[in-house]
C-alpha cells in the first residue's frame, strides 16, 4: 500500500513537471500569420512555452475579446487589439501595460514611436504594434495613359478620372467600401469626412458629423459608390476586383500592395501607378490604423503567465521576425523603423510606391474617435451610410442630411447613457 502511494506521488510530480506553460492567443486571420505560425516550433523549443492561437474575423475578434475580458472568463492571455478598441480595453483595466513584460532583448524602443502612441492611453503603452496601415492611391497607369489622363492630386480630379474610366461591366471607374460597420464603410469614409473639413466630434466631444461639410463628404462618397461594381463591397471585394483588373482607380490601405504586386494573385504587377490620397477642400487625409498584441489582465492572472505572454509578444514582434516577413513577401505588415529603413525592404517595392507612402505618412492621422463608445456609434453611422449607398445605387430617393441627423442623435444617446 505504501509503495502504491509513493508511485502515485511520483506520478503526480512528473505530471506537474511536464505541465507546460501555454500562451493562449486570440487573433484575427492574416496572411502573414501563416508565415509566423510556421516559426512557432522554434519559439517553443527555445522557451518551452507552447502557443495556441484561436482566430476570429475582425468583428468577431473584437466582440470575443470583449466578452472574454468583460465576463472575467479570461480564456486568452494575449489579445489582438487595434486603434478602435484600445481605448475601451485600457479604460476598463483589461490590459496590462506592455512595457512591464516586454523582454528587454527584443527592444521595445525599436518600434516607430507614432505607432506605439496609437496603442497607448494616457501615455501608457498597452500594445506592441504588429502592423500599421495608411491610405495610398493605386491606379492603372496603362489605362490612364490610354485615355491621356494625368494622375489626380485633388478629389475633383480623382472623380474625373473615375468617370472617364467607367465603362461597366467591363471596367468600373472605382470600387470603394460600402459594407456597413465602424471598421468597414465608416473607416473608409472617415478620411473623406476630414478632407472636406468635417469631423466626428467637436472640441467638447459633442458629435457634429451632420455638418454641411459632412454632407458634402457623403455626397462625394456616393459618387464613388455609383461608379463601383456594388454598393456594399467589403475591403476584400475591392481588392479582389482591382487585382482582377475590373477597377480603374482606388484609394485604400497601403498593405494591399503586398498582394497586388504578387503575380500569382494579381494581374497588375507593372501596370500600376501610385500617389498620396488626393486632396479635398481641407487638404489630403489618410487613415491611420495600428494593430498590436497586448497582454490580457483577466487572462494572464499570474506573474508567470504574464511573463510568458510578454515573451511570446516580444519574440513575435522581434526585429528578426519582421525581416523574415519582408522576405516572405509581407514586408508592409511591420512596425519597426529599422525594418522600413532596411535594404531588403527598400528593394522589395517600386520607387513610385515608396514615394506615395512618403506622401501618405505626411497626411496620416487618426480619423476615428478613440472612445469606448466608438464601435456602437460607428456601427450605427455605418448602417445609415449603407442605406444611403444602396438607395442611391438602386435609383431610389435618399436624404443625406436626415440620415446624418439621425446618426448624430443616436450618438448623443449613446454618449449620454
Amino acid at each position, binding site marked *: 500500500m505504501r509503495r502504491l502511494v509513493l508511485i502515485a506521488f511520483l506520478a503526480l510530480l512528473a505530471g506537474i513537471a511536464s505541465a507546460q506553460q501555454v500562451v493562449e492567443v486570440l487573433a484575427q486571420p492574416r496572411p502573414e500569420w501563416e508565415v509566423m505560425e510556421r516559426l512557432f516550433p522554434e519559439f517553443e523549443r527555445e522557451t518551452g512555452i507552447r502557443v495556441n492561437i484561436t482566430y476570429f474575423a475582425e468583428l468577431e475578434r473584437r466582440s470575443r475579446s*470583449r466578452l472574454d475580458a468583460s465576463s472575467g472568463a479570461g480564456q486568452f492571455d494575449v489579445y489582438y487589439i487595434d486603434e478602435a478598441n484600445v481605448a475601451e480595453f485600457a479604460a476598463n483595466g483589461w490590459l496590462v501595460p506592455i512595457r512591464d513584460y516586454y523582454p528587454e532583448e527584443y527592444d521595445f524602443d525599436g518600434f516607430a514611436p507614432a505607432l506605439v502612441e496609437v496603442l497607448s492611453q494616457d501615455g501608457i503603452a498597452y500594445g506592441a504594434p504588429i502592423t500599421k496601415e495608411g491610405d495610398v492611391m493605386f491606379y492603372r497607369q496603362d489605362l490612364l495613359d490610354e485615355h491621356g489622363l494625368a494622375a489626380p492630386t485633388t478629389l475633383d480630379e480623382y472623380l474625373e478620372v473615375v468617370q472617364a474610366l467607367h465603362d461597366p461591366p467591363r471596367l468600373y471607374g472605382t470600387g470603394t467600401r460600402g459594407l456597413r460597420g465602424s471598421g468597414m464603410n465608416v473607416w473608409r469614409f472617415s478620411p473623406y469626412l476630414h478632407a472636406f473639413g468635417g469631423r466626428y466630434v467637436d472640441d467638447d466631444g459633442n458629435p457634429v458629423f451632420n455638418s454641411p461639410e459632412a454632407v458634402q463628404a457623403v455626397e462625394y462618397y456616393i459618387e464613388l459608390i455609383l461608379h463601383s461594381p456594388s454598393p456594399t463591397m467589403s475591403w476584400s471585394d475591392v481588392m479582389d476586383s482591382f487585382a482582377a483588373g475590373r477597377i480603374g482607380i482606388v484609394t485604400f490601405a497601403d498593405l494591399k500592395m503586398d498582394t497586388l504586386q504578387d503575380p500569382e494573385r494579381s494581374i497588375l504587377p507593372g501596370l500600376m501607378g501610385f500617389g498620396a490620397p488626393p486632396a479635398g477642400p481641407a487638404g489630403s487625409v489618410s487613415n491611420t490604423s495600428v494593430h498590436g498584441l497586448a497582454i490580457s489582465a483577466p487572462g494572464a492572472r499570474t506573474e508567470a503567465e504574464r511573463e510568458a505572454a510578454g515573451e511570446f509578444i516580444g519574440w513575435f514582434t522581434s526585429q528578426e521576425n519582421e525581416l523574415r516577413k519582408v522576405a516572405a513577401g509581407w514586408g508592409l505588415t511591420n512596425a519597426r523603423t529599422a525594418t522600413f529603413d532596411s535594404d531588403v525592404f527598400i528593394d522589395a517595392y517600386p520607387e513610385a510606391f515608396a514615394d506615395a507612402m512618403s506622401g501618405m505618412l505626411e497626411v496620416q492621422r487618426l480619423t476615428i474617435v478613440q472612445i469606448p463608445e466608438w464601435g456602437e456609434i460607428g456601427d450605427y453611422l455605418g448602417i445609415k451610410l449603407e442605406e444611403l449607398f444602396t438607395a442611391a445605387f438602386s435609383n431610389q430617393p435618399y436624404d443625406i442630411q436626415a440620415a446624418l441627423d439621425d446618426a448624430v442623435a443616436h450618438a448623443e444617446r449613446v454618449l449620454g447613457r
Partner: protein
Amino acid sequence: MSKRQFFYVFLIPTVVVLLAFALYPLFTAIYYSLHDWDLRRTEPMAFIGLGNYLEMFQDARFLNSLRISGLFLVGTVAGSVLVAFVLAPFVHETARSHALRSACLFAFILPAVLPRVGAAYMWRLMYDPSIGVINYLFSLVNLGPFIFLQNPRLALPSIIVIDVWQWGFLLTALMMILLREVPNEVIEAARLDGTNMLQLYVLIMYPLILPLSLPLIFVKMMESLRSFDFIFVLTAGGPGIATETLDMYAYWQGLGTAGRVSYAAAMSIFMVILSIVFVTIAWRALRRWHES
C-alpha cells in the same frame, strides 16, 4: 420497481436536458433582461426593472426588426404554402406513373436537404449582379443587370424567395404523399357528382389533407422565426436594416458590437412571448376554421 417508478426513471434524462438547455437559459435571460449588464463597462450590473422593455418600444430599430420578422414570417409561410397547394395537385394530376412521381418527389426534397448556410451561399452567388446566373439569364433577353441583395426594396423579397425555394418544394413533396393517401372511392364519387377539378380540390381534397398538413405549416412557422444563420450569410441584416430580423438585432445589440447583453436578453424574452402568443392564436384559429 413499479411501472410508475419505471416511467419516472426514463423521464430523468429528458428532464435534465430540458432543465439545463431550455429552462436554465430562459430564466437567466429573464434575470439579465431586468438588469443593465453592459459588456463595455466593468461596474456590477444593477436592477432596472422593466427599463429595457420600455426602451425597446421607443427604439425605431427594434420596431423595424419586429416588422421585418413579421414580413419574413408571413412571406415565407404564405409563399411555401401557396407553392405547395398549387404545385402538388398539378404534379399529382399530370405525373401519373410511379417512376415520374418518385423523380418529382426526389427533386422537390433536394433543396431542403441542402444545409441552410450552404443554400444561402449558393444563392448569394446566383444573385450576384456581375457573375450570377440569374442576371445572366436576364441578360439573354436584354434585361438587367439587377441588384437583388443590395437593393433596400428587393433584399427582403429576394431572401424570402430562397426560403420558399427550400420549404415550398419540401411542403409540395409532403403534400403529394398526402394526396396519394386520399381514397380513390371519394374521388370517383365526387367525379360522378360532376365536380370539376377546382371544386374537387377546394371542396374535397384540401379539407381531407388539411389536418395532416397543419402541423407541417406550424413547423415552418417556428422555423421562419429563427433564420439567423441564413440571413446572416446573405445580408447580415442589410442593406441598412432592410432585412434585420428580431434575432439579428438582438445579436448586434448583445454580442455583436454594442455589448448590451441585458437589452438583447429583453428582446429575446419578448420574442419568446410573442411566438407563444402568436402560435397559440394561429393554432386555435386554424382549428376552429377546420372544425366548422
